[in-house]
């Protein structure tokens, strides 16, 4: 059985089926491992904890990168595409992260983590809480203490800003 032309059926949590070429599907290390010992022409792989909307997004990513590799797409183009791909709301972003981690797609996981890290960077604690709807669960004394300990960091960034 050649790997070319082989189709993998991925079934989302909500029973939607996605037909994907073998090379695209096996960008997920999990699926690659599952398919290792199977030789049928079409294999159905249930993905029990990823819903259709997110799975579609993940497959979109895999398909693009599979193609990009095949036709030797330039780094800048890929970078640009990745950036556009990650322009989603927080919910979808976290869903993609969880899916990428479950399906073990290292590059997508990396991209997602980088995106979230980019959102966190250069923001104050209050801004981060607001952005992700996180409740600060420290007592006031703890907050004050941590602010003091971390003071030198903000001191520096202010100085840097002033220097610029």
């Amino acid at each position, binding site marked *: 059985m050649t790997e070319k032309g082989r189709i993998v059926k991925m079934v989302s*949590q909500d029973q939607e089926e996605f037909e994907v070429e073998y090379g695209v599907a096996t960008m997920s290390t999990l699926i690659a491992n599952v398919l290792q010992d199977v030789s049928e022409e079409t294999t159905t792989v249930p993905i029990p904890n990823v819903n259709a909307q997110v799975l579609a997004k993940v497959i979109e990513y895999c398909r693009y990168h599979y193609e990009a590799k095949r036709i030797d797409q330039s780094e800048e183009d890929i970078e640009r595409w990745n950036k556009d791909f990650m322009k989603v709301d927080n919910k979808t972003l*976290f869903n993609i992260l969880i899916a990428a981690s479950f399906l073990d797609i290292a590059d997508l996981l990396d991209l997602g983590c980088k995106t*979230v890290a980019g959102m*966190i960077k250069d923001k104050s604690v209050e801004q981060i809480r607001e952005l992700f709807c996180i409740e600060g669960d420290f007592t006031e004394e703890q907050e004050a203490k941590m602010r003091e*300990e*971390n003071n*030198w960091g903000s*001191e520096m960034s202010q100085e840097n800003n002033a220097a610029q």
Partner: protein
Amino acid sequence: MKREVVIIDADDEAEIRRRRRSSRKRPRATTEIASRLLSTENSSVQVETGSSVSNKLARLEVQRTAEVPSIDDLSDDLLVQIFQHLGGLLELMRVLPVCKRWLRVGGDPRLWSTLSFYNYEHVSDAALRSILANGQALRRLKSLSLAKCHRISEETVRLIPKSPCVNSLESIDLSWCSGASSRSVPIFSRCPGLKEVKLSYCWKVHGRALKCLALRCPRLEVLDINCCTNVRDSHIIAFAEHCRNLRYLNIANARSVSDRAICRLAEHCKNLEVLDLSWCSKITDVSLNAIAANLPKLRELRLNETQVSNLGLCQVVKSCKQLEELHLARCPIGVFAAASIALHCRTNLKILNLACCEAIPDRAVVAILSCCISLRSLDVSTLPCRRIGNIVESFSGQTIVYY
């Protein structure tokens, strides 16, 4: 509520229980959605078949996953991976006070392998101490850079090799750091895995304090003691005899180091790739002969203002085929040395510094330019009356010439 209406057979009931149990962890959204679902559809959902139940459950599940995800739903592991992309420990420490969970996850030792105060050189002594007090997290610290941190006391630097990172530390950079001294540096010999020590411009560190490192850190590969005070032959010989893995050695400005030490060094440390002997004014061709005979892997050699001459240099360029960078500013070399460079460094040499080598004539410079095809940078500045402007233009390629 008519929640029970939809349950038909025992299998489904078990399934629903299982799902309920698993969804209990996220009670807010599930109950909310479930009740919304029931309130809008319960009129039509009086009796259903097993398959539609599972469909409904699936739908419920979909809505749950579509509605709930927030950063709180990411596993600790994912959060660690996000933190790893923040660009450094100091950026990480800035965001940890967001909530208790972040603070806890941020203590993961995977995040604590490198601590660098690059861009945060104003760090106060007290702040560094409070970081060092974070025992558990420091357990896996491999690399610590306090380069140019000028508010750090000797006492605080002494605390570093006494913190839990002592067994994991592989690299320490104290260049220009105010806390590096003959009292603090020798304590790093407690770190058995130390591979990299950078003490550039640590005036307060004396040669005899370094000997301790030589004797107790046999794995050293990178050592920079540029401008340390009173570095003598015996100290260099101690490193040569005990640290056979040295790849990078910078002993620039060690004015009392002589050929005797360099000969021993070349005999013992055959893996040396980078050697900086600039301003070691006692160095002569004797050292160069030893280097030529023993160091085939040498990539970078700096001999600015030493006493090396044509003959020694000729030996080096003949034997060290890997040489990419050669610095010979203010060395008493002449046309013979330049011709040897042009002859033997044709393919690999990338950077050549001949500043103030007054005995090298224009035609030798032109010969080097035309022979050394990889040359990226050539410094022939402050030479008397160079008249090679128009010649240089014809070698426009990648080569940059200062004159």
